[in-house]
């Protein structure tokens, strides 16, 4: 007998789905808060980053660039490139959420994270009620938001207390490894990742411009391999 999930049930399901993810979001948020403070921002600015930007990798990159007195245009461009993947997620989610009221779409947009996209996409392909999918997403997003802000504040307050040789900042690449590896489902994606990863290291450019160029290189390699594969097969 099919179960009809009400809006509230979906919302709670979303919150529950977030629980395992919180294990990676919490340390990530702490690192972000600590990074902002050690880059020279005050507590209010660091907290504002998490509220206004709500994107960990961009926040960390922005903090590091800020510490190096990078021009704000570079910070903006770097942040945009790092967050460009949200464009792809949003485009994919528009097939589910494209018809909602503007205000709900805005809230959905604000809460978009890698995990929210991935988990919601999986949930959508399951047996959930499509009419209430956005409630699942919002539950997940709300839990994420609370967790993130709490973690950021903890990072702001505690950041300086954790000794550097504990290497807690290693959590950031680990979090992304955990997200990246399951994505690499074909050769073109693997090549894109390898190209992007290598380029980011070997392009010794100032002010993290290497990240922008590395991303573009990775995308180009991905497209190139895709075309080669299509020609052969």
């Amino acid at each position: 007998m099919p179960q009809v999930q009400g809006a509230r049930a979906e919302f709670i399901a979303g919150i529950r789905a977030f629980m395992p993810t919180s294990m990676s979001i919490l340390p990530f948020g702490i690192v972000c808060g600590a990074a902002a403070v050690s880059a020279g921002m005050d507590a209010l600015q660091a907290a504002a980053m998490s509220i206004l930007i709500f994107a960990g990798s961009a926040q960390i990159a922005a903090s590091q660039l800020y510490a190096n007195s990078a021009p704000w245009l570079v910070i903006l461009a770097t942040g945009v490139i790092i967050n460009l993947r949200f464009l792809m997620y949003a485009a994919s989610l528009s097939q589910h959420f494209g018809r909602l009221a503007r205000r709900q779409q805005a809230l959905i947009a604000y809460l978009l994270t890698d995990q929210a996209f991935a988990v919601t996409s999986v949930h959508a392909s399951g047996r959930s009620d499509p009419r209430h999918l956005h409630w699942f997403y919002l539950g997940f997003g709300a839990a994420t938001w609370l967790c993130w802000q709490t973690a950021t504040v903890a990072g702001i307050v505690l950041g300086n207390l954790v000794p550097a040789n504990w290497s807690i900042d290693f959590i950031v690449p680990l979090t992304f490894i955990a997200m990246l590896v399951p994505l690499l489902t074909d050769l073109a994606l693997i090549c894109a990742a390898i190209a992007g990863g290598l380029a980011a290291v070997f392009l010794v450019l100032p002010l993290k411009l290497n990240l922008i160029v590395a991303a573009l290189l990775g995308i180009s390699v991905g497209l190139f391999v895709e075309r080669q594969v299509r020609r052969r097969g």
Partner: protein
Amino acid sequence: MIVGLGSATFLIRYWPITFLGRGELPGWLKRALRYVPAAVMAAIITPPLFFIGSTPTIAFDLPRGAAAALAAVVAWRTRSALPTLVLGMLALWTLQALSS
């Protein structure tokens, strides 16, 4: 700076949801966007494995690199974040303790 980046990020997330319900992205852009997460995430992962400190000397940090490689294998096998993080950190601490 924060407001600017916040607004830009919001627009990146908001615009496709509202406007792509109807129109379509050009084909080349759609194909290119597919590789953005892979390329960008890889580009975020690798620098912390190399540069120790702020001088860009390309020195491979062996404990971090090895721990990251192990984490990648764990991620591939388990597809789950928690074991990846836990085993990755444990590997790092172990290797750092061994090499000091």
